């Protein structure tokens, strides 16, 4: 009688254990739940932008809102370019003169595999909610983007990109016209603004 009770108890423990292990598999949302629609083209636009620097950066994200915390990693892909569509080219004797326009910094998320991974979200409170809304997460990512732009200036990338753009622009116009070209740079260190 005692032995059968023990066997029953062991069987019950095994059954409960199996249920605890298997339940998350069934209650976790499945890959098949997600319906991905066809891509649509929203816009095609033309431009003439001379790009002198490509930036590739992996950034750890550690942010908190109240008791909730998130740790993630994002791969950023950026460019430093110059709108040369309406360049003002003046001629002085045989030499062409042109001023380098302001830089435009574009920071996007890379399309390489696993460019955005949420590693952990947690709460300081026991059993507390660790969920971040889409809006909260987007605001955190916007801060990451703005910090990346500040770092690009701080590290001297803009200065380097402007110097190279000036040389490249001079070479391009000179090759096309076979005339000497002088490119002047009114802001060699660049100028950070809200548009960047």
């Amino acid at each position: 009688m005692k032995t059968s009770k023990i066997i029953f108890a062991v069987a019950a423990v095994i059954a409960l254990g199996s249920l605890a292990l298997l339940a998350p598999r069934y209650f976790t949302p499945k890959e098949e739940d997600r319906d991905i629609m066809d891509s649509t083209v929203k816009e095609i636009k033309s431009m003439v932008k001379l790009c002198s620097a490509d930036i590739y950066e992996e950034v750890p994200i550690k942010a908190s809102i109240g008791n909730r915390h998130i740790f993630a990693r994002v791969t950023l892909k950026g460019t430093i370019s110059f709108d040369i569509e309406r360049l003002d080219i003046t001629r002085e004797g045989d030499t062409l003169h042109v001023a380098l326009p302001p830089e435009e910094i574009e920071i996007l998320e890379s399309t390489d595999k696993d460019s955005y991974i949420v590693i952990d979200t947690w709460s300081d409170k026991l059993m507390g909610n660790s969920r971040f809304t889409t809006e909260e997460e987007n605001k955190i990512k916007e801060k990451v983007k703005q910090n990346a732009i500040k770092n690009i200036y701080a590290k001297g990338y803009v200065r380097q990109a402007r110097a190279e753009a000036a040389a490249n622009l001079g070479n391009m116009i000179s090759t096309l016209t076979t005339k000497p070209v002088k490119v002047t740079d009114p802001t060699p260190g660049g100028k950070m603004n809200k548009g960047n």
Partner: protein
Amino acid sequence: MKLGIITSALALAALIFTGCRKNEEPHDIYNEIKSVNRLNLAGMTISKMATIDDITLDEAKGVKETADALLNAIKIGDRIAVYSYDTYLRAYIDLSELTPSDVAVDESTRSVTLLLPAIKTEFAGRDLPIRENHYRVTGLRSAINAKERAAIKERMNESLKAEVRRNPQFQNHVKSEARRKAVAYFESMLGNLGYSADISFKSK
């Protein structure tokens, strides 16, 4: 007896530590700046949308999906959300491939014959934020979390890139716009300097 207890304790400890260890991959954080000499001529904005939703019995195919659909049917509440974001495809010419032999200037007729490098395309990147177009989680269903959103974005990204690879129309459209823009730009620039221009592109 003591040795047996110690051995069992060590074995148990090893088992616990092995079980508790998270599957952590090393994450190398690095940054890189690369000098380029590229003329970006056109950009295409491609939008992608996806839903996070439970599979229903009508949609289920096969035993596994049917089992999932049955489980979903007994869950209390609904869990559906729609997300989207944009990806950018750019068309450009690599100016480092432009050599003096690609340009012929005839001063007598004030004309320039220009053979520009081939137009190429690449993904510029995608939006950092994701748009939440719809969100409805009711009853006892769990909220959609950041990990799920990151995972769906990854799958949308894979799907979009596969579509662009499969369908050359995406690249053809943006290349054709870039070609038109390059011709207009160089004609205008050379025109302002008093030259007429004959512009063509290398095939590769």
